């Protein structure tokens, strides 16, 4: 579904990603794991069109992404759940969700998708008229995922959904990710919380200092000594 070939990207003269090639197949959940500053967020921003790559090819279902601005990439079926949730704190939960369906391709299904999000996250229905900024971190993450689903995407990009959340809440967030998977969404997730994320995805890539250094099935990675040593402190 998503194919990246030899992507180089960065900001100004600073290069954050070197020769990244990865792919995500339909129905899969794939993680990109790596420490702070490895380039995980840059990778997400490049795919969603917010940062232009220096070079390389990106394709979504055979269509090249490089020429599209962010709002059109959403129309191609890629929804981005940004780092730190990035809700519109001064708006109600429902308005936040409705904005997720702003893309032309999503407007007609807006009511149906809203119903679906409320079904998926009943908590959001309870809080529909509350200001998004006044909710707890876990609920905000729910709202951010809901907003992304509102655009009716084929592929969900999730940027560190566990960042800045209490350990108990992190558990809940990963069970949200599992729910999303069960609903049939294809997911590409970047995370630092390696142990947890490897339990909800099929495959993972290891990103370090802007380069992919390893990849494999999550089961194998969980058992691999080098991963256990480098990322889990075991």
């Amino acid at each position, binding site marked *: 579904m998503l194919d990246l070939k030899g992507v180089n990207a960065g900001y100004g003269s600073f290069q954050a990603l070197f020769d990244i090639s990865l792919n995500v197949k339909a129905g899969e959940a794939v993680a990109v794991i790596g420490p702070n500053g490895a380039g995980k967020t840059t990778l997400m921003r490049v795919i*969603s*069109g*917010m940062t232009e790559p220096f070079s390389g090819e990106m394709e979504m279902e055979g269509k090249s992404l490089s020429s599209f*601005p*962010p*709002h059109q990439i*959403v*129309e191609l079926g890629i*929804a*981005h*759940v*940004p780092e730190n949730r*990035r*809700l*519109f*704190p*001064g*708006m109600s939960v429902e*308005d936040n969700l*409705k*904005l*997720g*369906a*702003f*893309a032309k391709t*999503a407007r007609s299904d807006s009511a149906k998708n809203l119903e679906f999000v409320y079904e998926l996250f009943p908590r959001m229905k309870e809080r529909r008229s509350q200001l998004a900024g006044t909710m707890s971190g876990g609920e905000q993450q729910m709202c951010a995922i809901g*907003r*992304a689903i509102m*655009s009716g995407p084929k592929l969900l990009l999730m940027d560190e959904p566990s960042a800045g959340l209490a350990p108990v809440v992190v558990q809940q967030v990963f069970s949200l990710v599992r729910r999303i998977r069960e609903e049939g969404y294809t997911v590409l997730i970047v995370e630092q919380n390696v142990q947890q994320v490897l339990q909800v995805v099929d495959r993972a890539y290891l990103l370090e200092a802007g380069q992919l250094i390893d990849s494999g099935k999550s089961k194998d990675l969980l058992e691999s000594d080098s991963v256990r040593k480098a990322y889990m402190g075991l």
Partner: protein
Amino acid sequence: MTRTIPFIIGFLLVVAPFSTPQYPLHLLIMILIWSLVYTAWSLMGRFGLVSLGHGAFMSIGAYVTALLWNYSGISPWIGIPAAMITAAIMAFLVAYPCFQFKIVGHYFALVTLALSEVVKLVIIASRDHTGGSLGFTPNREGDGTSFYALQFADKETFYFVVLGAWVLGLVIWRLVDKSMMRYALDSISEDEDASAAAGIHVTGSKLKITMLSAVLTALGGALYCQYQMFIGPEVIGGIGISLQIVFAVVVGGLYTMMGPTIGAIITLLMTEIFRNWITSLRTEGIDLAGLDTSIYGLMLILFIIFLPKGVLGELIDRLAGGRQKDTS
């Protein structure tokens, strides 16, 4: 009760010219013209797009209309749309690079501030055609009343022209308020990246509202010119006017439809009172020229600190708050 108020005001506005002496009628016309300009500014101002360059759009509206009339004999009926298109093009030329390169907040305000000065300086520099800082007067057609030239010797007719323009401004405000664009712009003002991630065309949405705002402001400038039959680079442009626009909207209320109009009423009445007061003091030998500007500055600061939603915004909040208490 509250539903009938707009009808009463509407009725009063329609019968006003037939029973009002000339001076108050003049004030009413000025209030309506400025209200249109302030409403136009608030279209974008309410979404955090603070422009200090609307004096430029007003000048463009007035000068393009008047120059086309004097030098080419083109009727304002064509000249005003031409001026509005010119303002839209100018808004695009300035705003597009700003939005594309993420020049926002204070930096955007500074760029637009430069715009109002540049347009003023261009007008002054081309004094052979525009009259420079001495100002410019459109040629009178015939005895002073001509539908073709959009010139009316009597205030009553002009009153209805500007009343229509003011209502148009409010209708556009309301249409924007009810549109999807309003949601988009609200979210953009909160977080541009997140809006883009939600599928909103950030640059496009900002550009649309900026151009719409500029076009309506140019209409206000052109009407000012047709009514006053005199324009000058500092009279309807430059930093002074650009700041006056911001001040009036902040005073009246940035987030409500009628806020800019209330702002126009308050500031215009204040200006008139100060003017009379300073003039009467001068006859007694006390010169306080410039005092009014100082008081404006002080008031702007006080308003931003204590009444950030403006007079009308605060009033609506109080009324709504009171009603909520009644029901609980």
